[in-house]
């Protein structure tokens, strides 16, 4: 099993979710995060105090998949999340040693 962590632009979430659903991926977990990267931020001024805001709103999607489903999922994410503009985000793949479905105690690939 692998865990996919994708950082994407927030307005792409629906599209990515739909693309993954079409692949038969039935579960994912989403977090609102702030990203720092090559995409430059903006300046905010509050009564003369200027702040450079480098942390931009991003969405992190976490999906644990069986090894076989990895490639398709990554490809789908990359495809739908791409705008071609800087700040589109990253996909990381991490190894997962086990998974348990709390409701049923199922483990391994059956659990995801």
């Amino acid at each position: 099993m692998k865990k996919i962590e994708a950082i994407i632009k927030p307005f792409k979430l629906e599209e990515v979710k739909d693309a993954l659903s079409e692949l038969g991926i039935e579960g994912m977990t989403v977090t609102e995060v702030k990203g720092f990267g090559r995409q430059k931020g903006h300046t905010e001024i509050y009564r003369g105090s200027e702040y450079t805001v480098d942390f931009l709103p991003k969405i992190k999607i976490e999906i644990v998949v069986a090894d076989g489903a990895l490639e398709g999922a990554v490809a789908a994410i990359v495809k739908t999340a791409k705008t071609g503009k800087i700040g589109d985000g990253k996909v990381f793949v991490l190894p997962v040693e086990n998974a348990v479905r709390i409701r049923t105690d199922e483990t391994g690939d059956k659990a995801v």
Partner: protein
Amino acid sequence: MKNKTTSVLRLLAAVASLAILGAVTSTLHAQDAPAAPAPTPVAFTNAPAAAQSAYLLAALTNGDPTPTNIAPVAVAGHTAWMMVSAALVLLMTLPGLALFYGGLVRSKNVLSMLAMCLGITGLVAIIWWAVGYSLVFGTNFASPFIGGSEFFFLKGIDSAPNTSYAYWIPQNVFCIFQLTFAIITPALIFGATAERLKFTALMAFVGLWMFVVYFPLAHMVWGATGLMNGVWNADAKIPAIDFAGGTVVHMSSGWSALILCILLGKRVGHGKEPMPPHSLVLTMIGTGLLWVGWYGFNAGSALAADSVAANAFLTTTLATAVAAFVWPLLEFILKGKPSVLGMCSGAVAGLVVITPACGFVNTTGAVIIGVVAGVVPYFAVTVVKHLFKYDDALDTFGIHGVGGTVGALLTGVLVNPSVNGNLVSDAYAAKNGLKAAIESHSLIVAQAKAAGITIALAVVGTIIITLIVKLLIGLRPTDEAEHQGLDITDHGEEGYTH
């Protein structure tokens, strides 16, 4: 899509043309109102005792002091009420409408709604001081379409009453009371265009719109020489009535909103991304403040703390409460769940529809209006909008445009002179035909004409202004900026940080 827009626009153009035609015909014979020769007033202390008593009673009850031949002055009770009313109407915009609209957008655009309300307040107040008040309530142009120049820069406006409008309140307070109307009206428009109109374009639009649409319309309806001021202008060619702004405020803003949002196009992602309100709590606070503030708007439009104000107070409450109940009831019946947004929408719809009628209808009329206000805008917003596919983001047209139009017409049907003697006054209503229209139950004709002129002016005016602003400044931010949200791109701030 393109086709849809075109056909909507065509339809509107047709409506507009007809309305203009009607307006022009009706007003061909407009003439200067002859100034009534005023007798020299006597000083209070020199007046006979009976005149003094009559004068004092008139002062307490907003009576006409003319028979006493003593000049009216600003009197405590009415002045107090009008200061309160002006403050309440300002509260409707700051922060009432700002919150109502601000809660309905996504959080990245919340400040753009607040900036809109604040920016319009500043801009309109400056225009009002310079020329606006005069163009609406002046009379030296002797025109049914626009006021005069005598009050430019508020020259000569002090605490003495302007008896063309009210006997017992200071003109400076009257001026500010009317300013608060001139502020909220354009602010209403930008619910429709929320989340995608540049702030600079918005401000430019408002600057032009006040001159092209608001000042003429407000003069026509409320100015002492106004074309459709049935209650107070003996020479009104169209003896229509609009107690607190069904045409001037809600129709003008609502129809302008429709046109502007069509010309502007839809929000990026509209129909694809979910765009739920980011805080119904803010929207509900806004609703409460709008409702409370609206008492200043409606009952304050009596320009006195008198019997007419009291009637407006009652009818406003009943219509609003009923509409606030009927809208979620429809949701409950049709969809299974009564929503807070439905309750808020119903309340605002009730307030809108009762606005032109509040000082002219009785209790039963108010309840009928409440029911209609809970039903018609509900369908405008949930059905009509989706049918025609324009992106009236926060439903300015659905609620103010449709609601205002319905209200203007219903006022013609439900009008009841027993709650307001001015409807059949010998001085005005008997002369311009209002009395006759009411007695023959045909007031709806004048009301329809007034509505038509309003729509025509709003539609044509908005098209022209929008094109100008588009050319000079451009209307929309880049898609990138729209994604990021207007708060950061237009104002360099965020609504919330943690």
